[in-house]
């Protein structure tokens, strides 16, 4: 472990090696993932796109350690992994501040320290002074930023995101892309971002991985070009997204 942190270059933060995942057994068994390999380097931002049934969410559950792969190996080098979903899934009976404190309570962080970090994290997601609000008083975009702050409160190096902006309107999503990009760079996070919005993937990712459906495996990997901060409506992003969309359509047509 200590040698791994000293030579971080080639080890990678997340190594998914030739995994498969089958749910059930016998005739009713469904193979969600078959022979998938994904490597994410330190501080990398990998976007994963695919149609329904590509095992995106399964991949994240496996990396988060919520499930075990049927074959193959998932290695995060013992690092902490945080996760965000399409729903903010904030605890409605707690204030925004107390929600962000939960992971720190799990980690037995002392109270004064928790308070300090809540203020800091709210600053980071630009929700200064919102600590005493309740989740249902916030808009969808604000709730997702609280969820992001809560995920960051886990002190994880790796952030898994399962279509976190899927339920938001376009303008809010745009802003959250900027915000996520900024926080990713400020915090040096490693992000594995799953979406079925190709433009979003190109807007955010250093690389985009295209998955096949039923079962899920990697079809192709696309490095994304373009200076950051990027704009989702720039010509460069559109052109790159178009290529990936073609690949995605081809994959979907295969199931007709």
């Amino acid at each position, binding site marked *: 472990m200590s040698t791994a942190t000293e030579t971080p270059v080639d080890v990678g933060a997340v190594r998914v090696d030739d995994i498969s995942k089958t749910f059930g057994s016998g005739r009713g068994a469904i193979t969600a993932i078959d022979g998938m390999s994904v490597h994410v380097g330190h501080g990398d931002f990998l976007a994963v796109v695919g149609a329904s049934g590509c095992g995106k969410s399964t991949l994240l559950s496996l990396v*988060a350690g*919520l499930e075990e792969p049927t074959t193959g190996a998932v290695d995060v080098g013992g690092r902490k*992994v*945080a*996760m965000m*979903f399409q*729903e903010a*899934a*904030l*605890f*409605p*009976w*707690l204030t925004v501040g107390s929600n962000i404190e*939960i*992971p720190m*309570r*799990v*980690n037995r962080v002392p109270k004064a320290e928790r308070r300090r970090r809540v203020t800091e994290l709210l600053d980071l997601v*630009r*929700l200064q002074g919102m600590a005493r609000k*309740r*989740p*249902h*008083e*916030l*808009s*969808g*975009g*604000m709730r997702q930023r609280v969820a992001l702050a*809560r995920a960051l409160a*886990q002190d994880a190096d790796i952030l898994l995101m399962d279509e976190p902006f899927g339920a938001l309107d376009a*303008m*809010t999503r745009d*802003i959250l892309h*900027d*915000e996520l990009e*900024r926080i990713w760079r400020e915090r040096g996070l490693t992000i594995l971002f799953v979406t079925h919005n190709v433009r979003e993937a190109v807007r955010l990712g250093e690389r985009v991985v295209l998955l096949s459906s039923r079962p899920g495996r990697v079809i192709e990997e696309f490095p994304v070009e373009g200076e950051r*901060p990027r704009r989702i409506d720039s010509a460069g992003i559109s052109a790159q997204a178009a290529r990936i969309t073609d690949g995605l359509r081809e994959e979907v047509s295969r199931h007709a």
Partner: protein
Amino acid sequence: MPETTERQDRHVQGLDALEQQPARGEDENGAARTAARIWSATWPKLAAIALVLVAWQSVSWSGWRSEYVFPGPDRVLPVLFDEVTSPEFWTAVQVTMQRALTGFALALAAGVLIGLGLTRFRILRSAVGSLVTGLQTMPSIVWFPFAMLLYGITESAIMFVIVLGAAPSIAGGLTSGIDHVNPSLLRAGKVMGLRGLQHYTLLIVPAALPMFVSGLKQGWAFAWRSLMAGELLVIINQQNSIGWALSQARQLNDAERLISYIIIVLVIGIVIDVFFNWADRALRRRWGLTQD
């Protein structure tokens, strides 16, 4: 870069400001509005009470039954007033409420234990889950002969029936509360590493609370009914209580007193129902389950 940061900051804050629910336009003169609201909630109730009194009085005056069996409010209300101003009345209420609270507390403990057992152990649920639901449909008075055989004419007999009546509802509220915790909250708890005791204290208990309170409310209704039946059937050493007062009034053909006590039982029921509704609403508001 600082320039872009500032622009982005304003952009984010502007969107937040627009997206948050604006406070509903409110009229000035808040005190007058509050008074108007209280009045508009109160007058239908007052009108209903007046209507009932008028109807009751007319039936009593119509001579359907002699006044001595069916007195009107003109004769009952003074008796009711005399009763509630007498110290014996308050001892009776105190004895009854003490039994109610003790019985309810016992039922609460039993209900929570049973409810937790049912959610923790699948086999227990498949074994006795439907029995617990079925017990809720039992008229509690059915248990009294058995309770009196077991415990004799004692408080314990009454407590036994209260617990049998109320505990299944409380257990049911708890199990359905725990069963219906939002799965996305469970998943969030899991990825945050909530486990063991913290999984319960930080997630399951607060998430299940609104349904648990509904179960408590239902359990109380059963406890109160069982207690009233119990006090009529199980009269312990002529001890003063609401049920005893009721059966005394019947034996002495004191219709005014009898009806007074019926009204008192009704009022106690309403007061406690109002309390539970208030708790339920406060919880729902805090949990964000209602919009207002």
